[in-house]
């Protein structure tokens, strides 16, 4: 078997890429997803590598990288978020995946970008392990139960008992969601329409307080969330005297409300109020849980614990820095990455 890797041409290879993703990665792969994720990202077009079995002329696998601007130490760097990695069934023997991933990392080593981030699956972690790359940190899922009827229903059939237990549990869970003390001056509301320049201004003012984090300009937020053809997102904002202080990005999966992103002034009262607002909205919508994934080193995790969120499973985060950027390594290799679900593109 001889496998060659080439860079894809997003225009010429569009159909091949969409079809391969549809077959091996996601049934959501179509032209709209492709144009949105691969062509319209305000941080730049995606880069794609295609592995081919030269004897058979068949596509063996694909790896993609989506540009992402991050802020750290008051400056900005361009990197990649890796994703849409797939290997066709008959080639899942590690070798082809290693070759594909090496091609991607070689491109980073050549200085194209300053870093790449990946949120690898268990199988993908095997590829990194073989490449000698360890996870930098972990994403931790936090969940706050709002109703336990889904759990009660699993064990009890009798509706009178389950109804009584549901009512009691709902009351107990509701009183655990205490309203923060100084919420009076804050206005929490769902954001209508596109994100304006105030979101870019907030990112400019606040990003340096957060270690390494994505550059959340209005243009980026509008693309990432409001123009997303795959999922419906909403923004909940906190304002004081009309000034934007923080926002949360939310979406629904079945009966669960997912907190995808949370960003703003680094003030525990403001963040607690915003999360309280998210939980209150989730209750109104009859959600079963509110959950979020966040880097384990995130400074707000203690607040989330106080607000009733419990720790669930962890998953690895890989950050790869080219050897040529040794001076930036210390910062970029620190565990101080502020990442949430919204930072992964696929």
């Amino acid at each position, binding site marked *: *078997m001889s496998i060659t890797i080439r860079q894809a041409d997003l225009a010429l290879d569009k159909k091949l890429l969409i079809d391969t993703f549809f077959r091996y990665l996601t049934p959501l792969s179509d032209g709209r997803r492709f144009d949105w994720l691969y062509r319209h990202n305000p941080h730049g077009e995606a880069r794609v590598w295609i592995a081919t079995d030269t004897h058979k002329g068949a596509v063996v696998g694909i790896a993609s990288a989506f540009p992402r601007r991050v802020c750290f130490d008051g400056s900005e760097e361009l990197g990649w978020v890796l994703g849409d990695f797939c290997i066709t069934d*008959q*080639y*899942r*023997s*590690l*070798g*082809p*995946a*290693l*070759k594909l991933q*090496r091609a991607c990392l070689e491109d980073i080593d050549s200085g194209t970008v300053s870093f790449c981030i990946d949120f690898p699956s*268990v*199988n*993908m*972690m*095997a*590829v990194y*392990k*073989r490449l000698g790359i360890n996870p930098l940190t972990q994403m931790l899922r936090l969940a706050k139960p709002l109703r336990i009827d889904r759990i009660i229903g699993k064990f009890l059939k009798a509706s009178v008992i389950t109804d009584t237990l549901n009512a009691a549990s709902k009351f107990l869970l509701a009183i655990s969601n205490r309203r923060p003390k100084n919420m009076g001056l804050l206005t929490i509301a769902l954001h209508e329409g596109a994100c304006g320049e105030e979101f870019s201004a907030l990112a400019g003012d606040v990003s340096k307080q957060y270690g390494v984090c994505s550059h959340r300009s209005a243009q980026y937020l509008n693309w990432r969330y409001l123009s997303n053809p795959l999922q419906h997102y909403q923004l909940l904002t906190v304002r004081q005297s009309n000034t934007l202080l923080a926002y949360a990005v939310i979406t629904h999966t079945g009966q669960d409300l997912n907190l995808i992103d949370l960003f703003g002034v680094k003030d525990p009262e403001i963040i607690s109020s915003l999360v309280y607002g998210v939980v209150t909205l989730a209750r109104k919508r009859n959600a079963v849980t509110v959950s979020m994934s966040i880097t384990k080193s995130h400074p707000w995790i203690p607040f989330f614990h106080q607000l009733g969120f419990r720790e669930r499973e962890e998953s690895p985060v890989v950050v790869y820095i080219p050897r040529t950027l040794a001076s930036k390594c210390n910062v970029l290799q620190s565990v101080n990455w502020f990442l949430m679900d919204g930072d992964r593109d696929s």
Partner: protein
Amino acid sequence: MQIDTIILRIREFLVTKFPRVQKLNNNENLLENDLLDSLAILDVVAFLESEFRITMTDEELIPENFESIQSLANFVEKKQIGQKSQLNT
């Protein structure tokens, strides 16, 4: 090392790690039966490298070498012969 001994050792390792292998004969496909995923292959590679004192390159981590117990054993045997002749030259 005789090919039969190599097969026996590989089979013992796989059965311990993945009990479903017990039901397969030496020529049945391990990849198509979903017995080996990427993580499992890493385990197999680590086992082959330490047990038979061989080194596997990325290029050798191809489906042909992992298809069955027989193909794993054939690969190990070929590799050992290759390493021996390299030592002799």
